[in-house]
Structure formats: structure tokens, C-alpha cells
């Protein structure tokens, strides 16, 4: 499936992975795809989104407000949360290190998911959330419907708008954007490019 992505669409996907890393999130979600689409160096729809009044700083702020950052994969916030239900993470860790050596608890679990077209994608940069995978599947469907041979940044944006329920869509809606109007503008961008 990935071979039908334009160079730019691949850049957007890589940008989403990078955004996930930057924010310290576990999975690549629709919000990270949106941040990548806003990156002018990667995406031809960045200008269109900026014109509509969306910018990366604002989106990042909205994401922070909604989900916060968790830069440590298994850090203080986890320890605190576990303490709230009576589990002493330090004690668990030291028991495990007694038996299995230092850092026994540190290995990040790998949970490959292979559902759907894009289920196997990993990019060694974290997995894609079900919604983000859905966005990429919808991008493909948009391209098929439009009889486009390749999937570009525009199709990813169309997929994002069609999915409609992810954090990205929520952020856009809360910023006062009309998703249907944004969709029309994106479709018009194709006509202008053609």
C-alpha cells in the first residue's frame, strides 16, 4: 500500500512519527498526522490549513491541554498513578531486578498489530493508533474515488476530515473550523494543481 504514497505523503507519515516522538506519546495518532500536514517543508496542504486559521503551535497547545505529555515511557506519572491504587512501583522494580538484573522492567514491550491495510506499519517510531490507520485507509479510498493513482498529502487531509472523530478533528472543530468547508477547499486545490 505504501508504494502508492507520493514522496510527500511519506514525508507526512514520517513527520507524524517525529511529532509523536517530540510529544513523548506512545502511538501515532490523528493529531500527529495533523501536525505533519501543517509542516510546510513536508506538506503541500500546510498553506491551505494556515489560511483556514490552523497553525502548529495552536494545535500543539490544544493537544497538550487534552492529553498532556508523557515524555517518560514508564516514569514518575506512572509510579504516582500506581501508588494511587496501592502499588509501589519502586518495590516491584527492585524485586524484578533482584531476579533478572538491573533494568529488567525497562524493556519496552512490542505489540505488533497487523490488522487492516496499514496494520503492520511500525517505522520503528511507534505504532499507529486505530484512528490514524483509519485516516490512512480513508486517504487511499479518497484517491480511489477521485481516480488518482497516487496518495498525496491532500488525500491524507481528506482522510483526516472524513474520519472526523479523532483528536485532530476535535482540535480543528474546536478552533472553529468547518470540516466540510475545509474538505471543499482541499478538493479545489486538486483542480488548481491540475
Amino acid at each position, binding site marked *: 500500500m505504501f508504494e502508492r504514497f507520493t514522496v510527500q505523503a511519506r514525508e507526512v507519515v514520517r513527520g507524524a512519527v517525529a511529532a509523536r516522538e517530540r510529544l513523548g506519546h506512545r502511538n501515532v495518532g490523528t493529531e500527529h498526522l495533523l501536525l505533519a500536514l501543517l509542516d510546510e517543508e513536508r506538506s503541500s496542504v500546510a498553506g491551505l490549513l494556515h489560511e483556514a486559521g490552523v497553525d502548529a503551535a495552536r494545535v500543539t497547545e490544544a493537544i497538550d491541554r487534552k492529553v498532556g505529555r508523557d515524555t517518560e515511557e514508564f516514569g514518575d*506519572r*506512572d509510579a504516582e498513578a*500506581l501508588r494511587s491504587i496501592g502499588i509501589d512501583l519502586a518495590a516491584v522494580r527492585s524485586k*524484578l531486578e533482584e531476579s533478572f538484573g538491573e533494568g529488567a522492567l525497562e524493556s519496552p*514491550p512490542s505489540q505488533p498489530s497487523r490488522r487492516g491495510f496499514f496494520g503492520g506499519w511500525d517505522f520503528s517510531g511507534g505504532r499507529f493508533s486505530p484512528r490514524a490507520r483509519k485516516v490512512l485507509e480513508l486517504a487511499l479510498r479518497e484517491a480511489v474515488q477521485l481516480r488518482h493513482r497516487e496518495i498525496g498529502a491532500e488525500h491524507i487531509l481528506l482522510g483526516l476530515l472524513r474520519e472526523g472523530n479523532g483528536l485532530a478533528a476535535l482540535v480543528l472543530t474546536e478552533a472553529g473550523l468547518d470540516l466540510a468547508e475545509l474538505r471543499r477547499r482541499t478538493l479545489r486545490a486538486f483542480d488548481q494543481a491540475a
Partner: protein
Amino acid sequence: MSQATDLAAAAGSTDPRVGLRAVLALRRLLERLEVVQVDNARRQGWSWQEIADALEVSRQGVHKKHAGRASARTQGGA
């Protein structure tokens, strides 16, 4: 200790954010614990079937989840 008081309050909190965050942390702990113990079982020569029985899951499930990891492969194939 004010921190202890805060935590005691958190334990009894009905705020979904606090409760759900604990669930997330517990899931992360569970995932890590499972990795540690499955790898250990493999190192000790347990078959995937034996591990699956102990975890009360399917052999296919446990194999799919863990067999790809280098440390779980050290004892050979499934």
C-alpha cells in the same frame, strides 16, 4: 506528609482522569511484566503452549505477541 495525603485523596478519587491514569499505568506495568516473564520462561526452555496455558491465553496469541522479540527467540522456534 502532604504528598501522602494527596495520594490518599487520589486513591479515593472519583475523578475519571485519576482512575483511568492508574489503569494506563497498570497496563504498562502488566505489559512489561509479561515481557520479562515470557522471556524468562523461554530461556528456561518452556514451550509456547506451556506459557500460553500458564497465562490462560491461546498459544497463537502468545506466540504472535512475543515470538518476534529477539530475547524470546533465543531458545529456538515455536
